[in-house]
C-alpha cells in the first residue's frame, strides 16, 4: 500500500538552499565585535589609533596567535588542551640551552629551535596517547602533561637562568619586515599553515569531523586514534614554537614562559567562534578571537584603566563580546554547555 501511493508526484522540488560559501552570517559576530571594539578604543584614545600601536598589537598578538592555532585543532575535535604552559616552558628552556647561551657551549641555532619544538611535540603526543590508549579525558591528560613539562623545564633550568646570545633567535623579536617583527610574520605563517591544514589536509578535516561525529568516522572504517594523537602532537609543536618565540622576546628561557596561555588561548578561540564542544570554527575564527582579546588588553592600558580593574574589565568585555556574537544564533532548545 505505502509503496504504490501516488504521493511520488508530490515532492515538488523546492529550490534547494545553496550552501553558504565564504563568510556566513553566523560567523560574522566576532569580526564585527572586533571592529566595534577597535573603533571604540580609537575614539577613546588618540594613542590607540596610531600605526605604532597597531604594530604593537600585532607583535603582542603573535605568541598568543601561535598557541591558539594549535589549540584550535584540539578544540575542533571537541577535546580541550591545558598543556600549553608546561610545553612552552619545556621548549623555552630547551631552546635557551641549545642555541648559543650563557650556560653551556651549545650553538645549534635553527636546529636547536627544531629540537625544542620536537620536545614539545613529543609531549603533546604523550597527551594524545594517554587520551586514546588510557581513555583518559584530554582535560586530565593535558593537565598532567603540562605538569610533566613544567617538571622537565625545572630540571633543565637547574637554578641558573639561561640567557640566549644567539643572534638569529634574538633578531626574531627585534628585526622588522614591512613594519612588523619577524615574530609577527612567524605567527602569520603559522596561521596560514594552520588554515591550509584545516582546509586541505586529511588531518585537519578529520579533526573537524571528529568534533562533528566521532562515532561516524569509526563506522566509516576510519581509525580516529592516530588522528587524535597527531592533532595533539601538532598542537604541541605549535606550543613549542610559541615557547621559542617567548624565549626570543625575553632573550631568556623561562620556566614560566607559558603561564596563563592555556586559558588565554581557549578564550581567544571561543571568542572567535570555535565551539568547545567541537565541530565548529577554525584557525581563522580563532585568529579573530586573538586579535579581539589583544586589542582589548592593549586598549584598556591605552585609555588608562586602573590596573586594579584591568582584569575585571577584560572579563566583562569577553563575556559581552561572546554574548553579542551568539545573539543572532539564539534558538530554543539549543545546547549551550
Amino acid at each position, binding site marked *: 500500500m505505502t509503496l504504490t501511493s501516488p504521493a511520488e508526484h508530490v515532492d515538488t522540488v523546492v529550490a534547494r538552499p545553496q550552501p553558504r560559501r565564504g563568510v556566513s552570517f553566523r560567523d560574522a559576530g566576532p569580526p564585527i565585535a572586533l571592529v566595534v571594539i577597535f573603533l571604540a578604543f580609537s575614539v577613546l584614545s588618540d594613542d590607540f589609533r596610531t600605526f605604532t600601536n597597531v604594530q604593537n598589537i600585532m607583535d603582542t598578538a603573535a605568541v598568543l596567535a601561535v598557541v591558539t592555532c594549535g589549540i584550535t585543532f584540539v578544540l575542533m575535535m571537541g577535546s580541550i588542551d591545558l598543556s600549553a604552559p608546561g610545553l612552552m616552558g619545556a621548549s623555552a628552556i630547551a631552546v635557551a640551552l641549545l642555541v648559543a647561551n650563557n650556560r653551556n657551549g651549545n650553538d645549534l641555532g635553527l636546529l636547536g629551535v627544531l629540537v625544542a619544538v620536537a620536545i614539545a611535540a613529543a609531549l603533546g603526543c604523550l597527551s594524545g596517547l594517554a587520551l586514546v590508549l588510557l581513555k583518559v579525558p584530554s582535560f586530565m591528560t593535558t593537565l598532567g602533561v603540562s605538569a610533566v613539562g613544567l617538571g622537565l623545564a625545572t630540571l633543565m633550568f637547574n637554578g641558573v637562568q639561561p640567557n640566549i646570545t644567539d643572534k638569529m633567535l634574538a633578531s626574531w623579536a627585534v628585526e622588522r619586515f614591512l613594519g612588523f617583527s619577524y615574530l609577527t610574520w612567524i605567527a602569520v605563517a603559522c596561521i596560514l599553515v594552520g588554515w591550509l591544514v584545516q582546509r586541505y589536509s586529511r588531518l585537519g578535516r578529520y579533526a573537524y569531523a571528529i568534533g562533528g561525529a566521532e562515532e561516524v568516522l569509526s563506522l566509516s572504517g576510519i581509525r580516529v586514534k592516530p588522528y587524535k594523537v597527531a592533532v595533539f602532537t601538532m598542537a604541541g609543536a605549535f606550543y613549542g614554537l610559541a615557547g621559542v618565540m617567548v624565549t626570543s622576546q625575553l632573550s631568556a628561557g623561562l620556566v614560566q614562559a607559558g603561564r596563563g596561555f592555556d586559558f588565554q588561548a581557549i578564550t581567544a578561540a571561543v571568542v572567535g567562534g570555535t565551539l568547545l564542544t567541537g565541530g565548529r570554527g577554525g584557525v581563522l575564527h580563532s585568529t579573530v578571537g586573538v586579535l579581539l582579546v589583544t586589542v582589548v588588553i592593549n586598549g584598556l592600558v591605552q585609555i588608562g584603566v586602573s590596573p586594579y580593574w584591568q582584569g575585571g574589565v*577584560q*572579563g566583562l568585555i569577553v563575556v559581552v563580546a*561572546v*554574548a553579542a556574537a551568539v545573539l543572532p544564533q*539564539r534558538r530554543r532548545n539549543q545546547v*549551550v554547555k
Partner: protein
Amino acid sequence: MSTPVLATPAADVGHADKGGPTLGQRLTSFMPLIALVALLAALSIADPDFLTQRSLTAVVRTSAPLVVLAVGATLVVLCGGIDLSIAALTSLSTVFFALWLPDLGGLTTLAVIAATACIGAVQGLTHVLLRIPSFIVTLGGMSIFSAVALVISDAGPVRITDRAATEWLTLYVGGYVPMAFVVAVIVVAAIALVLRLTPIQSWITATGYSEPAARLAGTPVDLVKVAAFTVSGACAGLASVMLVSRNFSGSPTMADNLLLPAVAAIVVGGTAITGGHGSVWRSLVGALVITLLRVGLPIVGVPSAWEQILYGAIIVAAVALTLDRSKVLIIK
C-alpha cells in the same frame, strides 16, 4: 484517564530483578577509593612516618576547602557545564568575610554564603538566558571577581581580629576529626541525599547526558543549571569561611590557585567532564587524592621538579583507573 490495556501480552519479557548492576560495575564505583588507598600506601612506603594519625588528621583538615569547592562544582559538571570561577569567588568571599565580620559578627558566615550563592545564581542566569557557554561566563566571572576583590580589599589582606566567628571550624570532633572536614562531609552527604531522594538527580543526569532530550521531556533544564551554579557559589562561600578560619584573614588572591586542583579532584573522582555521569562522593575522594598529592609528595621528600612530573603522571593514572568508561561513550 484509566490506563489502557493492550491486547498483546508481554511474551517473554524478562524484566525480573535480574540484570541489575554486575559485580564489575559495582567495583568501578569503588575505584576512586582504591586509588586513594593505593596512593596512601605508596606514600607510606616512601616515608613510613607519613602514616601517622596526626599526619592523616592534617591531610583531611587540609582537604576540607578543596572538598567543598570540588563538590559544588561537581553539580555544574554533572549538568554538562563547568565553573571556572569557584576559586576567584572563594578569594573574593574571604575578603567579604573579613570586611563584614566587624558588623555582622556571628551572622557573617551565613551572609557570605548567601552572597556567593546569589553570585553563583547570577552566573547561572547569564549562562542560560544569554546562551553563553558556561566556560566563558565563569571565565569572565573569574576575572571580574578578582578585580572586585582587589579593589574592595585595597589590594591587600584584611586581617580578622575576632576569631570567635570561625573558631568552631578549627575544633576537633572526638579529639581527632577536624571540624572543617566534618562540615565538608556533611555538605557532601546532604547534597548526595537530596539528589538521591528527589527527582533532581534524574533531572541533572538527563541534562548532563542530553540537554535537548531533557528539555523536550519537560525537565526544568534551565532551573537545574541555575541551581547547580547557585550551589557551586554557596560552596565557594563555605570554602572561603574554612580558609579564613585557617588563615585568620581574607585576601583577594587567597584561593586563586585552587581552581585546577578542584577540577582535577572532580575528574580524578571519575566524574565525566562531559556531564551526566558522576557523583559528589567521587569528588570527595578525588579531593583527598589531590590533597595527598599536593602535600604528600613534597613532604615525603620528592624534589620539586620530580614532584611536578609525578603529580602529572599520577593524576592521569588515577583517572585511567576511576573513570567508568561504560558510562562515557566518547572520551574527548
